[in-house]
Structures are given as C-alpha cells and as structure tokens.
C-alpha cells in the first residue's frame, strides 16, 4: 500500500468520525486543526483506523502519534 492510498483511507475514516464529508487531512494535521478532535474522538478515530486497515496498534504506537503523518507512517510500516 502506498502513502497516498493510506491517506485516501484515512480521509474516509476522518470524514466518517467527524461527520464532515469535506474534511481532508494532511501530514501535519493535528488535533488542534480539527473541530471536535478531543480525547474521546481520538480513541474513536484510532479504533476506526484499526478496523479500516485491519491492524491493531500497540499503546506505544498510539501514544507516539503526534500528527496524521506519524499515524500514516506507522500504518505503512504495519502493512508492509
């Protein structure tokens, strides 16, 4: 899977979780950039991404996700 494909999948998850079909995330996107991205939405997001890509993040990976870019890198590594 390429990084672009991962971002395509991530955008679908984000749009679904935040109920906003126009939402587009980028490498540097963080919780501060998206309205409603609080600690609970973050967890919903993590679990939804896991389901979408068929992976399971470790707690270390969850805590090290500083922005969408690091999330994509972890996914890329897991799916390789």
């Amino acid at each position: 899977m390429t990084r672009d494909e991962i971002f395509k999948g991530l955008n679908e998850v984000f749009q679904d979780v935040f109920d906003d079909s126009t939402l587009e995330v980028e490498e540097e996107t963080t919780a501060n950039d998206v309205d409603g991205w609080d600690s609970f939405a973050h967890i919903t997001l993590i679990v939804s991404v896991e389901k979408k890509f068929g992976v399971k993040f470790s707690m270390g990976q969850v805590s090290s996700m500083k922005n969408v870019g690091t999330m994509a890198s972890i996914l890329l590594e897991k799916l390789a």
Partner: protein
Amino acid sequence: MLFNSQIFIFLFLPICLLGWYFLNHLHFRKSAMIFLTGMSLFFYGFYNPSYLILILGSIGFNYVLSFLILKTKKTISSNIWMTLGVSGNLLFLGYYKYFDFFIENTNFIFKTDFALQHIILPLGISFFTLQQVSYIIDRCWETAPHYTLVDYMAFVTFFPQLIAGPIVLHSELIPQFQMEEKRKFQLSSFVDGCIYFSLGLGKKVLIADVFAILVNEGFEKIYYIDTPAAWLMALCYLIELYFDFSGYCDMAVGLGKMFGFDLPQNFKSPLKAHSVQDFWQRWHFTLTRFLTTYLYTPLTIMGIRKNKRKLFTYLTPMLVFLISGFWHGASWTFVIWGAFQGLGILWSQRKKWKLKKSGITWFGTFVFAIISNAIFRSETIDNMLRMLKAMFVPHVTGFSFELASSLSEVPEFYMITRVMEILNPNLMDFLYLLLLSCLLLISALILKGKNAAEILSYRQDKGYTFLFAAQIAVIFSWSVLSLNQVSTFLYFNF
C-alpha cells in the same frame, strides 16, 4: 526550600545559575549536570534531609527497572516489568500518602484497633512518582530510551519542577539537557525566565496569599457561615488556588527558562473555560495529559476493542477522575470531588442539548468550578456538608462582614483601615467589603486578560518597553517586600 523565600531568590538561585553556566562555559558538561542534580537535592532536602533517602530510593528503583527492561528485552515480557514498575511506585506512594487513611477506614469498618503511623507526606512524592511511572510505562511501550544515570537523575530532581509540577515528561526535558546550544547562556531566555518568575511570584504573594487569609478564616469558623459567606469563601478559594498553583507553575517555567530549558505550560486560562472538559484541558494540564495518556486512552481502547463501547465511554472518565481525586489527597472529600468532576466530564460529552459557546456556558462552568472547590477545600465530610448546606439552603446572618474584616491582616490595607478607624469606626465593616470587592475586581480583570504565556508572546512580537520592564520590576519588588510572611504552596500538600 520555597521559591517564595529570600534565601531561594537571593542565595540559592544565583549560586545555582552561576555554577551551571560557569561549568558549561568550561565545557564540563557532565560536571554541570552533577552540579545541577546536587543543588536540586540540596533544595529538596533543605527542610528535612531524611527525605533524600526516599527520592534517591525511588530514582534507584526506577532506574534499575529501566536497565532490566533494556537487558531482558528478548527474554522477559515488558508487561511483567510494567506491572512491577507501576505497582512498586504505587505501593511506595500508597505507604507514604494513604497508609493512615487505609488504617482509619479499616478500623471504622471492621471495628479494629490498628495503630495509626502518623506519616507526614514527603514533599513532592505525588509528582516525582507520577513522573517516573510515566517513564517506566514509556520504557515498556518502547517509546523511551534507557538514559544515563546522570541525565535521569537530573531529569527527576530538576528543582524547578520537582515539588509541585508541572509533571514534565522525560521526552520534554532530557533531549534539552543533551542539546549543545541549550548549555550556553541565552539572554532572551533568561529575561523571559525572570518575567515569568516575577509574574508567578506576584500571583502567589500579592493575590493568592491575600485571599488565603479570608478563606482560612472562613473555614476556621465554618460553624457560623451563612449563604453569601459560603459562596464568597468558595469563590475566594477558587481564586486563591488558581493564583497559588498557576503562580507556582509560572515560577517553575521561569526558572526553567533561566537555565535555558522549556517546561510545559500547566495552566491555559482555565477560568475562561466553557465546559468541564475544556476546563481540564486548561487547569493542571500536565496531570490531565498524564491521566489521558496512561489511563483513559488505554482503558477506553481496550473497552471498545471488547465491544463494550457504551460501558467504557461512561465508566472510564468516572474512574479517571476518581483516581485523580484520590491522587490529590487521602480523604473521602477528594474522592467525592473526583466523582463530581467525572459527572461534569460526562455532561460535557453529551450528544444532545449541546449549547454553543456563550456567556451561559462560561458561567455554568465557572459556577461548577466554584462548587467543586468548596468540596476540594473541605477537609472532612462534615465540613463539606456544612459548606454545601450553607451554599444551597439560603440563610443570611451577616457573617460576610466578619469574613471580609479578616482583610485587616493585609499589611497593604493598614493605612486605609487606620484612617477609617479614626474617622468613622462604624463604617469599618463596609470598608472591608469595599476592599474585598476591589480585590475581586482586580482578580477578575487579571483573569480576563492575557495569561503569562500570552503576555510573553505578545511582548516578543511587539518588543519590550520601558513601561513593561517597570511594571515587572514593581511586581517583583513588591512581592519580595511582602516575603516576610512566607507561606507554603497549596499543592505541596497533594
């Protein structure tokens, strides 16, 4: 040692700064770190050197554990080390903080007669224990390296953050220790540090300590309080606690900057919050971050993975705040306070009846904070019930006048009160109420304005003016002149 003492400001701090920059100037990197650690341990053990054994024992335990995690990476599961590390730290904290509470409750429930140990809470134990728990968990999650002993000791003991936070993470401080450019004296960082420190000192000495007089008086005479007095006490305590703790944290950040290091902001104008959830993102932020990272997130993810989303959505915030309450102190009032916060968080997370940010949402959150603090300040269940009854069952006895008259102890009001005593002693009660109203108004204006970080960033953009420098100098000098009545920080008790 206290930040708000002359010995700290005029002796300890200059020696520490001179030693640190001198050793770094000579490129004695390791010696500088050892010097900083030694000074921090001196700072910690100043009033009671026996506590040094505790902090060194705690550091030793966690450092050895981190070493064992490194050496047994392929042979022993990190979950075993995590269980050992977390339970070891919690037992350590549990003995010193909760042993007597546990005995008291056991005696009460089972009618036993176990003797109390009367253990005095060692300074900063709640903070440096949490900090090290976070390191051990990060080691087990493989997000933290095994540091050198010198770096690790300097990280835990670094005196600006040692006793009452902010709860600094290893990943925030140790990489800064290792940066070459951080070891050189930077005038801009030093100046910012002095400004932060002065603002924090002013918050503590000129505001929090004044409100403390009134709050302490009220709680000493809690049997006589009426409705206006109870609300006034709870409001004044909220102001006292905010200025006390955020003042301490501003001083901590300032001291960090004097050494060239950035510490995290612990307060982001919490009294401007529009919901309880928003409040906890702004008040004691580093504690919220700790609880979110190491408790709330793993527990909720686990629950959702086990298809128990609904249960865990409600259960986890409640559990997290019950623990947060208990962390603050060994008393049932803190547990009740925690449950109250948990309910507030669940209310913030509701899907229906959501209100847009407005004066109403702000006011609701502010009143919630006032009631929370009435519970937080009550040392016993009896006092808490007395406070809440006084707040919610209206009755007026005029106790507010007596409460306000405690301001006669404030040295700054001495001249005004003396003059009024001579001119018209019958108006003294009204004078004290007027003075209290002025204090509340000044506090409201400060709370409404920019916080310390915003003031600094505004000044960095616009440039420092002579007027600004003069204001800071006045705050610092006035605070130092008021230091003859040194008082400890509220969060030293937690």
